């Protein structure tokens, strides 16, 4: 398995102008591809655009009539979603949990990945495979013993407990990816650093981290979206409304207000925007030379 260091999601685009004969300078063979691209984008974004459209629909018009584009758009749903139902509270909880999960996972995984990438030590591959093995077992399968463990540790209904579980579930894949990236960094850089008297932590902080920044950014995006969207674990561990994260709060919202579709979709849009923004920001680093999962 190798992790390529070539841009993938965002290869520098071919110039639009003058790239060949044909309409708008688009190569002829590209035209049918463009049609397919538009269809793929419609398929992917359609349901989400529909959600956005519904969120601007006056509440009375929902359910009972099919609406594609609201005739009298209103932001009332957003006002209601944000001010009632402690929705802003759920938003903050999700933000705290996701950011803390990203920070802790990335730090701990970097330390471990550095050990795997740069040291020889007894049991090295065994320990590595112990980490990898859990990738073959769905995390959700551990919900019951994790629930009892959190109960014993008095970490039920606590955001800190949730963060610990999220860190544990994100560590293996992150270590696996970062090991590959760290191994790709030439050792000579590090040796000259060591010659200047740098210790292990300084090598990691002032050499490896800056060089692996694109990889760390992309990995952070993956962890952020996983933590932001996680539902079953939060549903199981958190039981007081003031500690709900967004997915649990949204699921609860629909249970309590079965008819309040407008505010629900407004809340859904608010819940979806941050994770899409984080993804779009991370595209920059996809471009600067990292592709995850180029596992051939």
């Amino acid at each position, binding site marked *: 398995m190798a992790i*390529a260091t*070539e841009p*993938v*999601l965002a290869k520098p*685009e*071919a110039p639009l102008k003058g*790239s060949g004969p044909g309409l708008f300078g688009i190569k002829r063979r590209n035209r049918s*591809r*463009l049609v397919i691209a538009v269809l793929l*984008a419609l398929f992917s*974004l359609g*349901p*989400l655009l529909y959600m956005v459209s519904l969120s601007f629909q006056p509440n009375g018009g*929902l*359910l009972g009539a*099919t609406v594609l584009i609201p005739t009298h758009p209103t932001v009332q749903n957003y006002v209601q979603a944000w001010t009632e139902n402690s929705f802003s509270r759920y938003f903050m909880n999700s933000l705290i949990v996701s950011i803390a999960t990203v920070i802790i996972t990335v730090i*701990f995984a970097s330390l*471990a990945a550095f*050990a795997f*990438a740069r*040291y*020889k*030590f007894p049991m090295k591959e065994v320990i590595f495979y112990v980490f990898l093995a*859990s990738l*073959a077992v*769905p*995390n*959700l*399968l551990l919900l*019951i013993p*994790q629930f*009892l*463990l959190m109960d014993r540790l008095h970490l039920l209904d606590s955001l800190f407990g949730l963060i*610990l579980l999220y*860190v*544990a579930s994100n*560590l*293996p894949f992150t270590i696996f990816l970062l090991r590959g990236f760290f*191994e790709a960094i030439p050792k000579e850089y590090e040796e000259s650093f060591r010659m200047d*008297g*740098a*210790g292990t932590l300084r*090598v990691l902080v002032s050499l490896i981290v800056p060089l692996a920044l694109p990889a760390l950014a992309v990995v952070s995006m993956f962890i952020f*979206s996983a933590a*932001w*969207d996680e*539902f*079953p674990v939060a549903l199981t561990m958190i039981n007081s409304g003031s500690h709900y994260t967004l*997915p649990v709060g949204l*699921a609860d919202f*629909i249970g309590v207000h079965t008819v309040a579709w407008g505010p629900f979709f407004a809340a859904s849009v608010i*819940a*979806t925007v941050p994770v*899409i923004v984080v*993804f779009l920001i991370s*595209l920059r680093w996809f471009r600067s030379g990292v592709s*995850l999962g*180029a*596992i*051939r």
Partner: protein
Amino acid sequence: MSNSVNLERHPATKSPGAASRRSTRGHRMRRFATPYLLLVPALLIYLTFTVYPIFRQFDMSFYNWHIFPGAANPFMGWSNYTAIFHDPVVRTASFNSFLFIVITVPIQMAIGLFAAAVLTDHLPGSMFWRAAVYIPVVTSWVVVSWVFSYIFASQGGLMNSIVGLFAGHTVSIDWTAQTWTANAVIWILSIWKGVGWSFIIFLAALDGIPRQLLESARIDGASESRVWRHVVLPSIRGAVTFVTVLLVIGAAQVFTQIFEITKGGPYNSTQSLMTYMYQQAFSNFAFGYAAALASLLAVVLFGFSAAEIRILRQQDL
């Protein structure tokens, strides 16, 4: 890895005095301990919250476990396991989970590979199309489950309007209330949300095929379908394995979309193994039984992943 070196061979020498003061024995200890110290934080969390629960769960599965403090937990031997094999809902849930895997995984992979083949670099706006295809992956399962519920609602749902347009009269199919239409909604949603993930991995894999390989095949006059069969597909076999294994593991834990859209109903007919396990544990408080179900599933999935990786590795040789 064979090419890793022990960097502590170049000891930190801040000043000559400091170096000579350090005893060689302490130095060797430090050199030995460094990688373990780096591993401690990750290992501690991982062992506590992932590895220990695996064994704890296996242990629990032999008891009639009660969550209430002070309650006795009688030892049951293998009877939780024998009960699983006589539980009709387990049969339904296994069938549904199996069907979910064989339907959603290949379709996701096919669309993902197709999208990766079409959205190449020289396509104008390739970055926009690629981002668009990936975006459903980062959305929340709870949110999109309800968006799809709404689209497939019996009154005023978008899907019924479309069907009505073709039928020529208003229809009010209650998609999510009947077993097979509800399953179809769950499959469509899961395929829609999953495509982007296999898409980016196939994109990376296709990008890694050497240009000369493709060009020489084309110069030799091979048709596009032959190029795909003999050059492209063999080159991305590793990515195909990776995607298959991870998608199957992901599909085996299908939970949120069923939990939100049908709650496993009507009459447990859309229950998956994971929703049934959850219901047994957290609604019926049959923790031992649910733990047995989870342990069994973990063993099956672990065996599957190991077998699949081995089979596809052998084909590589």
